[in-house]
């Protein structure tokens, strides 16, 4: 019995967005028939990677609960769209990196969770280059 799989599909296969642009995506759950979903959370967020402790901020968040919407609603493809902010832009720094992604968290019975995420870029800043002191 394989675990359900969460697919995140960006509209038009787009993976790079300009600040202020609309992001549209669909989340689809596969092989869910044998599992009883309790809730699903969809977030558009950025988080940092690198040397520092992780910072995270959520730009878009929605929770769909089987209690409120019914279990059938969770089995249908979930479409959403959100206008992306002007900042922070995706950044590949040396010790500070900023990553944007759509993250879907599926809550199953017995406290089981399945997390899927798809990264995308906000802005088009090239990777940073370390300046070597003279």
């Amino acid at each position, binding site marked *: 019995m394989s675990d359900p799989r969460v697919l995140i599909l960006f509209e038009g296969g787009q993976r790079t967005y*300009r*600040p*202020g*642009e609309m992001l549209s995506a669909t989340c689809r759950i596969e092989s869910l028939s044998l599992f009883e979903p309790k809730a699903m*959370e969809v*977030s558009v*967020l950025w988080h*940092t990677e*690198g*040397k*520092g*402790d*992780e*910072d*995270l*901020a*959520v730009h878009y*968040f929605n*929770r769909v609960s089987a209690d409120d919407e019914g279990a059938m609603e969770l089995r249908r493809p979930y479409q959403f769209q959100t206008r992306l*902010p*002007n*900042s*922070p*832009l995706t*950044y590949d*720094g*040396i*010790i*500070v990196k*900023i990553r944007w992604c759509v*993250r879907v*968290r599926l809550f199953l019975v017995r*406290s*089981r*969770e399945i*997390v899927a995420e798809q990264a995308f870029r906000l*802005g*088009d*800043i*090239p990777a*940073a*280059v*370390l*300046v070597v*002191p003279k």
Partner: protein
Amino acid sequence: MRSDALGGASLALFFAIVFFAGCIALGLMLVNVTIPAWRTRHKFIACTAKLLDKRMDEVSGEQGTRFQPSFRVNYEVAQRKQDVWTSEMPRPFTSDRASSQAILDRFEVGHDYPCWYDPFDPSRAVLLQGYRVQAWLVLIFPVSFIALGGGGLAWSLANLGKSVERRAALAQRAAQLDPFVEPDPIGRRFPHVPGQGNLTNSPGTTLAFRLPSTVSNWKLLGGLIICLFWNGVVLVFAVIAVESFRLGEPEWFLALALVPLALIGLGLVYLVLRQLWVLTGLGPTIVEIDRHPLIPGSSYQLFVAQSGRLAVNWLSLSLVCDEEATFRQGTNLRADTCQVYRHEIHRQERFVVKPEKPMSIRCRFDVPLAVMHSFNSEHNRVIWKLIVEADVIGWPRIERAYALQVYPSPAEGDLL
């Protein structure tokens, strides 16, 4: 994910233990200290008692000997004579013998004194109706445990079973509703880009804005505190060493160990004075800019002025971008910085600055099109700044930094 839930449950359990420990301690202190103290003051009934005897009770334990004055008094309640030993209630035993003796000396055997007895148990009485602040102050300890444990427990329970994204979303929503935080229009349009703060509140004399120096006095203050602390400790040990020599019992090991410590202390004094000299000896460097905030791909005018009497080997003005990350390593909070952009805007060599003829430079610089904007989050930052460096004859190398904010290029129709 289950480990997250387990971690949250463990944290809730920890706070619950702290909370209940605080409740138990509060109950014990109320019953044994605070309520008895309050009752002696408000509920005990006054009468007159004859002092028959007095003594100093002593208890020896691991913490040394502790003392408590005790009095034998005789008084009458409802035509029944009471003959009891009493102490100042709820005064606990104390190691301060002098204060206990002073209380004992205030009373003379054979004299009559006001006395207060417990209406529920007339054999309990006090000669001193002390209403000690300590009886209430002891409650701070359990109350702080209750506040910390209760707050932590409520926070843990509120977050139990919630995902990190849901917690972040709730925290962000709560922060937006904070009535004490003024909404920042630029912060809303450019989240996590630092506001302009005090970068644009000082008009320039030549260009629009005078930039404040980011070199804070904290470095000097920190150095001064370390220097005073170090030399204070060395001084205490030096006094002990000198006293040992004066008494004819020289502490040679202490005296020898103090020599390197004293040399370090002198080194610290030198460093602090040098820092003070650099900070105050040279005149201020004025840096002004024609527009702010900065936008990638735009060009800006700068004006730099230096006053004083200086012979300068070289002076350099650079636009710099640093990444800064703070992280926990064990119990320590550490920071690391790394430079990702540096461009020398202007360089001038071999010139003299006189009080009647201050040095002034006007130049232009461009912010490259494809660079990261200023960024600020709890543990990570991207910082843009102008750095003025100079090699001045007779002075240590000078480096002064001036903060700038680089904003992302605005979206179409979203003009800054």
